[in-house]
């Protein structure tokens, strides 16, 4: 029987807290930028402009067919080159920046698919009604279609956010320490890997479960 020894966890809490901060930072940026950029992509993909919709589709399919680890790695290896070209020599520590960029661009591809489905779930008649009132196509999209699309897609947006929150751990490939990575490193350093990972798993479960309950609750309250 395995002997569990949880003694290294209390001392590691401040470190784990720092890791959690990185996780949250990456998650929130990716959600905000991903949804913003993803919405633009979704609208472009549904637009009647062939070129625009082709480009958007290409972007989405490309990002969706490469594992996230590879995307993060590529950004880490290529972004410094690009930045160097732009700003000259010293670019300092770009780990966090390149992780943020990689996640945001990657998640945008997923969010755009969800939002596209959301837009398509809004009855065509709603667009006709908006236009018939004299709203411009842009206003109709902004005031009528998108609010409903987001509302319909809250469960899926949430599921994706939870996946994203968990996927943040992949930043280990570029040596950035998020919550999971910190737990792993502490476990490795102290020879208590199993304990630290179980602890991390429990923490993830509590956070994800609480957030999803909370969102369901809010959704039930505000959406009639």
């Amino acid at each position, binding site marked *: *029987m*395995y002997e569990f020894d949880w003694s290294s966890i209390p001392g590691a809490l401040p470190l784990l807290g720092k890791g959690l901060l990185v996780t949250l930072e990456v998650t929130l940026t990716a959600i905000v930028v991903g949804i913003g950029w993803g919405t633009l992509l979704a609208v472009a993909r549904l637009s009647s402009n062939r070129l625009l919709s082709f480009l958007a589709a290409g972007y989405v399919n490309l990002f*969706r*067919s*490469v*594992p*996230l*680890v*590879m995307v993060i*790695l*590529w950004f880490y*290896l290529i972004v410094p*080159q690009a930045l160097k070209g732009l700003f000259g020599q010293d670019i300092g520590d770009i780990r966090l920046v390149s992780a943020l960029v990689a996640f945001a661009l990657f998640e945008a591809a997923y969010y755009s*698919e969800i939002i596209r489905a959301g837009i398509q779930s809004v009855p065509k008649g709603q667009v006709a009604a908006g236009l018939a009132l004299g709203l411009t196509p842009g206003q109709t999209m902004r005031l009528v279609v998108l609010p409903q699309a987001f509302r319909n897609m809250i469960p899926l947006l949430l*599921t994706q956010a*939870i996946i994203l929150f*968990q996927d943040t*751990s992949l930043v280990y490939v570029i040596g950035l320490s998020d919550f*999971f990575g910190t737990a792993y490193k502490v476990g490795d350093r102290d020879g208590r*890997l*199993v304990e630290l*990972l*179980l602890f*991390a*798993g429990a923490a*993830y*479960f509590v956070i*994800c*479960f609480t957030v*999803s309950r909370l969102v369901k609750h809010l959704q039930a309250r505000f959406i009639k």
Partner: protein
Amino acid sequence: MNYNWNWSVFLTPVPSGETTYLGWLFTGLQWTVALSLSAWVIALVVGSIVGVLRTVPNRWLSSFAAVYVECFRNVPLLVQLFSWYFVLPELLPPALGNAYKQSDPLLQQFLAAMLCLGLFTAARVAEQVRAGIESLPRGQKNAGLAMGFTLAQVYRHVLLPMAFRIIVPPLTSEFLNIFKNSAVATTIGLIELSRQAQQLVDYTAQPYEAFIAVTLLYVCINVTVMFLMRRLEEKVRVPGFIGGK
């Protein structure tokens, strides 16, 4: 950048000499494919059962299914894999656990990764199956029951055939994800595709070539899967219904 490109590295023999580095990549590819496909079978079977259970009018069964889904989707895959590989054998009776741990390591790694990936994806498949069933008009179930079908027959003949057709596109995404997620098996030592990339970097010190090759291989897998699923979608398309002719 002072990087020495050397694409011929793939054709040079590996240190033990029995194959080339390209051969290694293909062995990795084989493991990735074998692992993903077998996990996909588990995911489909378990996911369908759990998804159906979530919709049946029995509180015990449906809350069991709900608990399953919550547990498997709120814990990171890596932690789950770790638990399957390192923790679970410790919970078995010592004799059984030790016998298992002394068996062929490759078998242990593959089993743990397959179960983990399969059951993890099953939770997500279950959600899709449930959504598919719930997207059908309620009247369909009633119509089946009203004709004298038992509940099981209603699921078998009426609800599931339609629900599965509806969820082919989201299932395609899950199928793609399982290939990408199979890369976590590397953490318990299974030499699948992404691990071979790492090996290549370690052995040849040619990281760009290795990463480019592996990225391309993943893209190939994806294109193939998308193509096959598109074909399937066309094949099962119902005339006069969603996107049918």
